[in-house]
């Protein structure tokens, strides 16, 4: 299978001697929906910055669809679309002009650029705003504008740096649907996000970066299999005394109506429900304490922190 992005032994040392990347390597296959996760300052943005030609690397190699970013820059850049975290368009330019101008930077003739701008602005629900200066758009619209701009040259690889940060739930869901459709149509997508629910719902493979090193690079499925316990929150009635206990389960009563239970991966919940029924306790609703990936991510980062401090 073709490799969309290949990163080999990538290092970045900033002017203040801070080593942001300590020789990371990973590949992203063509057609993948890939998440690059890590806590703030882990090296995600530096990695994406180097791939996007916005940050100079110290050493290492980056290839986009087999084109070396240093030796065959134009071909590599043509295969890549970038949606940055911060709004970086001219706020005084009109929406349509921003997208058409970006097409021009890729050498796309005016007639084709106009057609493509119309297609992508329509797809992202911004066609009505084409003659409006970008500063007049809402936060969600600005984010969609950056996606339209990144797609106008029809890249095979799209990088999104926290695409749904600060976006309301409804819009986030519609952006997820759009990205899924784009991926299904063949575009390889790499995203960074702080919403781990987003990574779990959209992505197939994942790399977790921390302190400038890749601590995990695997499929989300196999990563989730590493999760030994899961925490559930049960809303119960009638109210219970604080010393409530269930055999074989680690439980804690947060308040008289809320029971927090840690369940071993191999155990299941049936045993707990039997005990609840036997004690005439009714479960009115149940939910995960946090997203599964989030639990795993926090555990990994904490473990990595302990190792680096040791």
């Amino acid at each position, binding site marked *: 299978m073709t490799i969309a992005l290949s990163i080999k032994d990538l290092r970045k040392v900033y002017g203040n001697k801070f080593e942001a990347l300590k020789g990371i390597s990973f590949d992203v296959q063509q057609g993948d929906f890939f998440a690059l996760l890590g806590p703030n300052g882990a090296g995600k943005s530096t990695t994406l910055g180097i791939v996007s030609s916005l*940050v100079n690397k110290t050493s290492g190699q980056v290839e986009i669809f087999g084109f070396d970013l240093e030796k065959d820059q134009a071909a590599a850049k043509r295969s890549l679309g970038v949606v*940055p975290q911060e709004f970086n368009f001219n706020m005084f330019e009109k929406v349509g002009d921003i997208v058409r101008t970006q097409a021009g930077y890729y050498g796309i003739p005016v007639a084709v650029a106009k057609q493509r701008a119309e297609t992508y602005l329509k797809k992202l629900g911004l066609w009505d705003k084409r003659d409006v200066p970008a500063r007049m758009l809402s936060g969600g619209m600005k984010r969609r504008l950056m996606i339209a701009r990144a797609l106008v040259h029809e890249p095979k690889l799209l990088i999104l740096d926290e695409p749904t940060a600060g976006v309301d739930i409804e819009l986030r869901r519609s952006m997820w649907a759009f990205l899924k459709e784009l991926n299904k149509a063949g575009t390889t997508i790499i995203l960074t996000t702080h919403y781990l629910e987003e990574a779990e719902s959209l992505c197939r493979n994942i790399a977790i970066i921390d302190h400038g090193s890749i601590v995990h690079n695997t499929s989300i499925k196999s990563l989730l299999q590493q999760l030994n316990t899961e925490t559930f929150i049960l809303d119960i009635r009638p109210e219970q005394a604080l010393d409530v206990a269930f055999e074989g389960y680690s439980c804690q009563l947060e308040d008289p109506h809320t029971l927090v239970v840690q369940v071993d991966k191999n155990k299941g919940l049936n045993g707990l429900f039997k005990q609840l029924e036997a004690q005439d306790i009714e479960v009115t609703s149940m939910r995960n304490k946090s997203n599964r990936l989030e639990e795993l991510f926090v555990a990994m980062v904490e473990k990595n922190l302990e190792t680096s401090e040791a």
Partner: protein
Amino acid sequence: MSHHELWVAFITIVRKEIRRFTRIWAQTLLPPAITMTLYFIIFGNLIGSRIGEMGGFSYMEFIVPGLIMMSVITNSYGNVVSSFFSTKFQKNIEELLVSPTPNWVILSGYVLGGVSRGLAVGFIVTLLSLFFTKLQIHSFWVTIATVMLTSVLFSLGGFINAVFANSFDDISIIPTFILTPLTYLGGVFYSIQLLPEFWQGVSQLNPILYMVNTFRYGILGSSDINVSFAFGVIILFNLVLFTIALKLLNMGKGIRQ
């Protein structure tokens, strides 16, 4: 990129630059028109009529080429320095950096944007000057070549200033403390023949003197300095500044971490 794609990218940058300064015409095209009209009225008409001849021409005739050139210089420089710095400041330079557009095309596009504004203002000032004096062109090609080369030179200067600038203060320091004094002392308002010999020598270190005098030669047929030598100086400065600007862009100075 193919030649056609390079051309499209170049034209896109130039169009964007022209769109920018025409959108804010009240800040870019109108002020030099008003300032130069005041110069024509006060220095050329009111004071000039008492000065008499300068270099064999009426004072108004003498200062018109210098004032046109002054407008071209300040507007070419001002366009690129403010546009490229804003692009850096708002981070929309990233739109260009992620694209396959080569650095020499980016630089050329910004420079032609600066030249476009410089020439647009030069044209407006020339039209205004016709209300005050008759303008005869002694040598069309010398006039055009000088104004073009000067505009390119100061667009390149503006670009280099923008690359090094970290704040809006930094883009006004050079125009205020270097460019304006050099322009005023570059023979716009007087012939250097009026100066003592020592100061004539010092004046010849000022590159703007060569541009103003070559342009004046193109219009009036009279110059304080040798025109061929002046062209050599202007072309040399252009080559040096283009090389420096391109080197800075290739290094990513001020735009890449």
